[in-house]
């Protein structure tokens, strides 16, 4: 686990109550989204938690500079930068390849996480297997496309917001989404996958 520099924890003068409350109202509700983004960018559960914690501290310090617009896009841009920093500092770390055995563990852990009653165990297992498949497919595509797909399909950001988070023009966002979707279609749609394998074995 990455050790967060102690300087991050140096207590600061308490900020204004309004600012604190605004931060709680505008930024903290996007914790799930921030984690989801960090998780798909790092492909690492532990690292993602560290990144999000780091990002929240930075976001809080930078919050006085937040000038309206989409709070979510603003936070996600910080999360993204923190992912970059974390990945650079752990250079040599290879993106985790998810094996089926470890997927099973993850699925099992997830099952325990959700205490609420669900359909039958078989249905749940099927669903979990499907979730694992989709997650692995997303993690397998190259980062610029993965990032665009996660922001659009899972976080439902607008093109303008994605452009703001990733710092590229909207046209680039559109072409990344198109390529990302094409790659995912090959993996996730049965007929596309079959056609792809056929053409590969034929050549």
């Amino acid at each position, binding site marked *: 686990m990455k050790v967060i520099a102690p300087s991050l924890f140096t207590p600061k003068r308490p900020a204004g*109550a*309004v600012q604190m409350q*605004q931060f*709680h109202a505008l930024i*903290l509700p996007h914790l799930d989204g921030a984690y989801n983004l960090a998780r798909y960018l790092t492909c690492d559960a532990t690292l993602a938690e560290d990144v999000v914690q780091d990002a929240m501290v930075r976001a809080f310090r930078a919050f006085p500079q937040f000038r309206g617009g989409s709070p979510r896009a603003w936070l996600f841009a910080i999360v993204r930068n923190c992912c970059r920093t974390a990945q650079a500092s752990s250079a040599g770390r290879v993106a985790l390849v998810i094996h089926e055995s470890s997927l099973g563990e993850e699925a099992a852990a*997830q099952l325990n996480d959700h205490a609420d009653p669900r359909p039958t165990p078989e249905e749940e297992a099927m*669903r979990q297997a499907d979730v694992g498949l989709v997650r692995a497919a997303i993690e397998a595509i190259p980062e610029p496309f993965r990032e665009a797909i996660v922001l659009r399909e*899972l976080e439902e950001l607008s093109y303008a917001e994605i452009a703001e988070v990733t710092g590229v023009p909207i046209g680039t966002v559109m*072409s990344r989404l198109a390529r990302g979707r094409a790659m995912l279609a090959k993996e996730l749609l049965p007929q*596309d996958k079959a056609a792809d394998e056929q053409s590969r074995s034929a050549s």
Partner: protein
Amino acid sequence: MPACADQELLLGGLIDNELDAANVALVEAHVARCEDCREELERLQAVRHRLRTDGVRHVAPESLSSRIAALPELAPPRSANDNRILRWLGPGVIGALAASVAMVTLLPPGTDSVVDQEIVSSHVRSLQPGHLTDVQTTNQHIVKPWFNGKIDFSPPVPELADVGFPLAGGRLDSIGGKTVAAIVYHRRLHTVNLYVWPAKDSAERSFVKDGFAVTEWSRNGLRYAAVSDIPPAEVRQFHQLFEQRSS
């Protein structure tokens, strides 16, 4: 078969609702003619369906939420009450301990200042683009029924345009963890938010917090709080006009 290369981005824009009307018409006309693009559109939608399977999106684990809540930077300032941190810690973290502390500290007079603060914060938040009104109209007969079925009380929505407070609309908001009606009036270029929620009658009061003028009053089992950046005297004037017109 691959879709037409020149349509690829437009098809994406179509399912993402990001095209303007002219482009929507163009791409829809093309899709009606072109079978390959029709198939591609279905493929895009199938991929979206798979991606949006429940559980694909990661949710912050409890351990992370509690780490964030425990950050010294995010601890509420000394003057604040405990209920805010409770709300943010979410269910289950600190749990029984905080709850028992809250039982002791949340009761009045502490509650007042928190609600005051929330009224002002909610007003500030509502001024962000797109946050002000859920139902946007100058017609009182649209705003009032709009609240029906969304809240279990019926706030009066008098017309005040002729006395300088034109109606702008309404929305639901949350104050002190309760759902409240927010009725929005304008005053010149300023916005007046009027929050209404059921509460025991208590005294009328006016105060200024962070530069925003607030006037609160009770009537017929409803508590009203008007907040705006106009001068406090005008907020009190708004209160009087509102009372006259709603009785």
